C-alpha cells in the first residue's frame, strides 16, 4: 500500500537518487532558517504527532520546530508521562494517538523495527526518529547535508566513525547513506563496540574495523564522533580514563586526518571524554551546523510526506532524477 516516500523508516532501502533528492529538497528550508520571518503557512491546519517512547531532547525539539515553522501543530507524547507506564501496548497507544487525527506520526522507540511495525497498522505517514540500534534517518540526512555544505560533495570520501558503533543507529544510517555515494568507512573503537561483523552491514560499501585511533584517522575527510555512553563502559570493563587515553579525539590526533577534515558529533557531547573542547569548538567542528541543518532536513521530510499524504500511488517527485550536483539552483 505504500510507496517509498509514504513513510521515512530507514535510509538503507533508498537509492542514491532518492537520497540526493531529499538533500536537495532540504536546501530551500536551509534558506528559510536565515529569514527574519521563519514561519510558513504551508502545512497550516495539519497536525504532527511526536511520539517519543525513548527520551530525546534535540530530535524532539528539532521535529517540533520543523513542524511549527511549516505552520503545522504538534501533539506530544513523552514516554515518562505516558500510559505506557500503566501497561498499555505500543499499538494501543499509537491507535489512540491516531484517533486524534494527526496527519503524520514521528516516533522514536528503543526497539529496532518498532516504527515499521506501527507503519503497517496506520494510514498516515510514519517518520522514524530513531529505533533501537537500527536507524536514525533524519540524523543521517542532516549529517550528509552538513558534509556536502562544508566539503562541496558527499562522493568518494574517507569517513571515520569513532566510538560505540555496535549500538549506534546514527552510524548505521550514515553508512547506508554515504555508502551509496562511494564513501569508504573506517570504524574505530574498543573491540567490544566494533565487532568485525559490522564490515558486512552494507554490501558493496568498503568498511574496515580498526582498534587504534592513530590508524583510523590517517587520511580521513570526515570524522564522525559518537557519544560514549559511560554506563556502557562497565560491560565489559574499560575505565573512562582508559577510553580517554586510547580513543579521545584531541588536536594532536586530529592532525593525522586530512587538513580539511571536518568533525561531526550527533550530540549530546561528553566534553573531555570522547572529544576535547579544543576539537569540539575548533574550526573543523560542524556540531552546531548539524543542529541547524537538522531543522531544515526535518522540514523537508514533513513537507514531503504530508503534502503527498493525500495521494496514495504516484509521486511525481520521485520521477525527477536529482543529481548530487543539483545543489545549485536552476
Amino acid at each position, binding site marked *: 500500500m505504500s510507496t517509498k516516500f509514504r513513510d521515512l523508516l530507514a535510509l538503507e532501502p533508498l537509492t542514491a537518487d532518492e537520497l540526493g533528492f531529499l538533500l536537495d529538497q532540504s536546501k*530551500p528550508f536551509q534558506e528559510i532558517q536565515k529569514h527574519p*520571518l521563519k514561519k510558513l*503557512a504551508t502545512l497550516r491546519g495539519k497536525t504532527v504527532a511526536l511520539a517519543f517512547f525513548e527520551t530525546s531532547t534535540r530530535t524532539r525539539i528539532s521535529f517540533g520546530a520543523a513542524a511549527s515553522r511549516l505552520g503545522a501543530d504538534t501533539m506530544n507524547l513523552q514516554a515518562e508521562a505516558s500510559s505506557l507506564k500503566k501497561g498499555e501496548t505500543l499499538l494501543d497507544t499509537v491507535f489512540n494517538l491516531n484517533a486524534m487525527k494527526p496527519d503524520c506520526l514521528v516516533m522514536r522507540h528503543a526497539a529496532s523495527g518498532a516504527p515499521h511495525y506501527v507503519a503497517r497498522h496506520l494510514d498516515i505517514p510514519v517518520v522514524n526518529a530513531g529505533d533501537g540500534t537500527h536507524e536514525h534517518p533524519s540524523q543521517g540526512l542532516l549529517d550528509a547535508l552538513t558534509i556536502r555544505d562544508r566539503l562541496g560533495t558527499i562522493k568518494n570520501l574517507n569517513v571515520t566513525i569513532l566510538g560505540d558503533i555496535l549500538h549506534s543507529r546514527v552510524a548505521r544510517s550514515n553508512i547506508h547513506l554515504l555508502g551509496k555515494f562511494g564513501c569508504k568507512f573506517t570504524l574505530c573503537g574498543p573491540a567490544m563496540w566494533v565487532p568485525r561483523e559490522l564490515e558486512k552491514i552494507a554490501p558493496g560499501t568498503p568498511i574496515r574495523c580498526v582498534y587504534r585511533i592513530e590508524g583510523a584517522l590517517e587520511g580521513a575527510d570526515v570524522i564522525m564522533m559518537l557519544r560514549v555512553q559511560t554506563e556502557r563502559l562497565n560491560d565489559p570493563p574499560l575505565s573512562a580514563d582508559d577510553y580517554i587515553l586510547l580513543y579521545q579525539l584531541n588536536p594532536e590526533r586530529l592532525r593525522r586526518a586530512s587538513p580539511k577534515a571536518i568533525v561531526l558529533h550527533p550530540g549530546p557531547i561528553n566534553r573531555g571524554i570522547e572529544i576535547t573542547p579544543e576539537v569540539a569548538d575548533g574550526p573543523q567542528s560542524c556540531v552546531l551546523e548539524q543542529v541547524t541543518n537538522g531543522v531544515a532536513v526535518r522540514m523537508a521530510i514533513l513537507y514531503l510526506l504530508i503534502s503527498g499524504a493525500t495521494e496514495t500511488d*504516484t509521486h511525481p*517527485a520521485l520521477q525527477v532524477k536529482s543529481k548530487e550536483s543539483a545543489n545549485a*539552483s536552476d
Partner: protein
Amino acid sequence: MRIVEKSQLMSAPEIDRTLQRLAHEIVEKSGGTKNLALIGIVRRGVPLAQRIAQAMQGIDGVNVPVGVLDITLYRDDLSKVAPQAVLRSSDIPFGVDNMDLVLVDDVLYTGRTIRAAMNGLFDLGRPKRVSLCVLVDRGHREMPIEARYVGRKVQTSDTEIIEVRLREIDKEERVVLVDRVE
C-alpha cells in the same frame, strides 16, 4: 484527453520586442532604476526577469538586481494539484526593505501565484512598493490582483492553456495557445 495547439500568440522576435518595451515602461514609471529590483517567479519568470534586467542595462547602464522566488511553499492548493511538489531554491541576494520590487512571471491567470509570491516576499522584509510585470495576461482572475506592466492581453476560455516556451528552459522560443480536447 489530448492537448492540441490552436495558435501561436508570439514569436521569438515578438517576445524580445515586448520585453524591451516592458523594460522601458518599468524604468519610466519607476522614475529610474534607484532602489529597483526584479524578482523572477520560478520557473519561467526567472529568465524573463533576467532578460528585462539586461534590457534595462541598455537603457540606464545600471545593473538592476534580480532575485529568484519559488512560491511552492506559499501555495494555497497544497496536495490538491501538486502532491510532493519539487521545491526549487529561492535566491534573493539583496535586502528587500524599502525596495521598489517588480515581480516578473510569464502568465497572469487566477492571481493565486502572485498572492503566494507576495506572502513569500513579505517574509523577507518590508518592500516600499511591489508591482507586477507579466508577459501574458489571460484573464479569469480569482483575486483582486492586477499587473502594472503587461506584455500582451489575451482572451481565453478556461479549458485553454497559454504555454510560454523560453529557450533557457524549453529549448524553443514562442508563446502558444493550446486547448484540452476530450
